[in-house]
């Protein structure tokens, strides 16, 4: 099945500072099921990139295998995309980033792709603090193979066929925190007002940014008894804070009540404003974040928002001290030591 999207654009369509209309950030028409949460996330990615004035071709979008991993085709058509193999997107993103530190790396994965087959690569990308945004479109089930439970399905959650999941679900947010991730957030595909600023903040973060987005599967996991259905998530969601993202160059136009917000300045000078909902809440406190997460779990709440951020984060390139220029831009003159040096080396082997 091939969908062709009309290329006609209204000439009056507003453009952002880099001269692109919002439609320039779109992809081909989605082939996912109508109402799929993933499509809403794609929409939020489009919105965030447009509002952040990102040049689409400066983004590299990568994914693994599964419904979620198809989505890079549905946004940012002028970006290069890499739909790799199941669970292996983190290593491909690592290599791509090693080759060119100047691009924006956007990885999209699902709960099967991340929490099962890709768990090994996922945790190591976190450990290395690879500078990328890693979005998990988390629906607790395997959509493309028709609805099997995934490793993030909660124990006791009921599938469409009526079977009850007997195994403990993996909480990617808690695990990422434990592993030392430097930007950890959770959101809900149906909550654009939260998700868009989170994506913007994550893209501004210098290091590995995880956003675990609950994204109900309308076809296989939106039934009563499922803990990843639209209804269940809406009923149990608890946002940590209302979020405002302010790019470096802009004046703060959102006004918050004195003392009610925390502003976190990110690597590129932009600021995330969090309107406190919980007393003493500071997203820079990792231990507090872990405690709060445990509390929410005990209370049966789904905690969303920016759970933790380390604004001082150093990415992989800073750790391994690689050249400031993209390595893929270096030429023979930079890289090849030449014949005369080889003569010296030969002498060392005599």
């Amino acid at each position, binding site marked *: 099945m*091939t969908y062709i999207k009309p290329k006609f654009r209204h000439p009056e369509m507003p453009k952002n500072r880099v001269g692109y209309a919002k439609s320039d950030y779109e992809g081909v028409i989605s082939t996912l099921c109508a109402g799929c949460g993933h499509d809403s996330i794609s929409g939020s990615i489009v919105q965030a990139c447009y509002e952040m004035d990102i*040049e*689409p*071709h*400066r983004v*590299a979008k*990568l994914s693994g295998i599964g419904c979620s991993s198809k989505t*890079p*085709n549905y946004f940012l*058509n*002028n*970006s*290069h*995309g*890499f*739909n*790799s*193999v199941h669970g*292996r997107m*983190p*290593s*491909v*993103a*690592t*290599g*791509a*980033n*090693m*080759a*060119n530190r*100047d*691009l924006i790396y956007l990885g999209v994965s699902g709960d099967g792709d991340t929490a099962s087959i890709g768990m*090994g*690569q996922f*945790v*190591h990308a976190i450990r*290395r603090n690879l500078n990328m945004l890693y979005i998990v479109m988390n629906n607790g089930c395997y959509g493309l193979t028709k609805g099997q439970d995934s490793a993030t399905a909660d124990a006791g959650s009921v599938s469409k066929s009526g079977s009850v999941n007997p195994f403990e679900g993996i909480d990617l947010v808690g695990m990422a925190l434990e592993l030392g991730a430097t930007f950890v957030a959770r959101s809900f595909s149906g909550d654009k007002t939260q998700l868009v600023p989170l994506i913007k903040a994550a893209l501004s973060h210098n290091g590995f940014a995880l956003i675990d987005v609950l994204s109900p599967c309308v076809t296989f996991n939106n039934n009563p008894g499922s803990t990843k259905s639209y209804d269940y998530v809406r009923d149990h969601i608890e946002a940590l804070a209302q979020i405002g993202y302010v790019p470096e160059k802009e004046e703060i136009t959102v006004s918050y009540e004195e003392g009610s917000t925390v502003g976190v300045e990110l690597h590129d000078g932009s600021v995330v404003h969090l309107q406190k909902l919980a007393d003493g809440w500071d997203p820079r406190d990792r231990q507090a974040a872990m405690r709060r997460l445990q509390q929410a779990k005990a209370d049966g709440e789904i905690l969303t928002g920016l759970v933790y951020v380390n604004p001082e984060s150093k990415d*992989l*390139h800073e750790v*391994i*001290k*690689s*050249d*400031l220029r993209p*390595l*893929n831009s*270096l030429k*023979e003159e*930079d*890289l*090849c*030591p*030449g*014949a005369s*040096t*080889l003569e010296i*080396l*030969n002498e060392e*082997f*005599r």
Partner: protein
Amino acid sequence: MQQLTAINDLVVRFANVNGTGSASANNMFAMSIFRMGIPVTAKNIFPSNIQGLPTWYEVRVSEKGYLGRREGVDLLVCVNPQSMKQDIASVKSGGYFIYDNTKNLHKDFIREDINYIGIPMIGICMRLYQDARQRQLFKNMIYVGALAALLDIELDVVKGIIADEFKKKPKLIEPNVQAMMEGVKYVQENYDSPLGLRVERRDLVGDSIVIDGNTACGLGAVYAGATVAGWYPITPSTSLVEAFAKYANRLRTDPETGLKKVAIVQAEDELAALGMVLGASWNGARAFTATSGPGVSLMNEFLGLAYFAEIPAVLVDVQRGGPSTGMPTRTQQSDLLLAAYASHGDTKHVLLIPSTPTECFNFMADAFDLAERLQTPVIVMTDLDLGMNDHLTAPLKWDDSRRYDRGKVYTAQDLDALSAMGKQFGRYLDVDGDGIPYRTLPATHPTKGSFFTRGTSHDEYARYTEDGVKNAEVLDRLLKKWDTAKDITPKPEFYQTANQSNIGVVFFGTTTYAALEALDLLKQEEDIVIDAMRATAFPFHESVEQFIEAHDHVFVIEQNRDAQFRTLLINELEINPKKLIKILNYDGMPITAEAIRRQIVGVLATV
């Protein structure tokens, strides 16, 4: 009693305990002979262990320049009581057994047909040194000195090597020289020296160097401009990436900022190692990884993706003994079929098969050019013998006028020109008719040239398709590319200007050393002349089929059980399989000329 006599034609085997510093002492012994201008080769026969198990180091000295392993030990240096019984048994009749006579040898260890030379290594150490580690290390130098006296190695040469070895810790030079001289002194005072078995200065090594294949591959990757390496440690490939890191750090670090023009990441496993290579290559960097058979097994998935999505990748497979975990510290050429057809579906991969460290260096540089030219994985097939053992080899050469072949990559200007002509960029369009399409790198152009790389079936524009005919067209084009590869990969080497015999022989990689020696033996001692071809690459150049066509019988010599190279020939070429006679060795030790000669003579007696 008979005493073996020979000049510059001998095998010395050291029996040591691993983890005792013996390797560097043994290396000094071999390098001394090299610096006396005599061809020499060394093989480290080591356990998969860090400390305490038997390890051997075998040095072959050959005036004729034969660099393969030779059967039979002329002189054994016994420093390991654990393996003494088997070591004594390994000495040729009339040969020499050097042992520590600080304590008397039990009568069970006495053979009437070999010559025992006792050196009180422990006794001398106990007398001279207080510290246990010193006693250990200087014991090694004592036997090096004793050997120098027995075999007539020039002492100034040994001293020069000690000075080079401890260049960075000059305080250690004098004590090591003294320990070495203690060994010399003991031999001179107690035995008639030198022995009839000895060395004599020659001028036979020219400007050769002594280097292992892993180091040469690592240096090759530096010269080829590799900037990204993802890797996972595995014997026997580990030292390859370590060599790359060492030389890249040394030659590509900015002295002021400390920043490096290289990014090396130790991956969580071999899957991720190759994933990093694909990501980096897709993004326009030259990237590689190195592994051994078990790693290639894990990399199958990504190799299939790279083949089908047409992403350059360079991989070195330093083969070891298989199957499964197998013999991690022994050599084989048993990954050929695995590498050639790695991954599910119709896949095949370009293999380059070097046979010397010099060729390792050259083929690494070629591998990056070929991978980018062909947009496909190129696997450099070495083995443990080539990778980890020192080899006498021609010096490494680089032509400063050489330019990297970055392959068919459209720039922003190319894309603008294309659209000015009213043409659309198609990632998988065969524009030139050679099966190789043009690619673009991420961020090349704001609005043109982007595409979606995928392992799913796709059309010429990289769009997903379930049209089976379209998919078959892609598979056919990949075959066309395969044909293109046949003419741009390294050509086979022929050892005669014109065929002289109705019998031919094919070999490759480290088998070459023994095969060439065997051909000399057959000619000189059996009067059998055989035409020889050394294969260097897969797919096969047309001259490979022509060579086989031109002979009635063709021996295929290789170091695996299943005659895998023979299978490749049968699978890829229109030839009569009956012509191909397998000559094999798969005991994990490098094949010898004698083994080849025995098998060929045996077969020829029946045909």
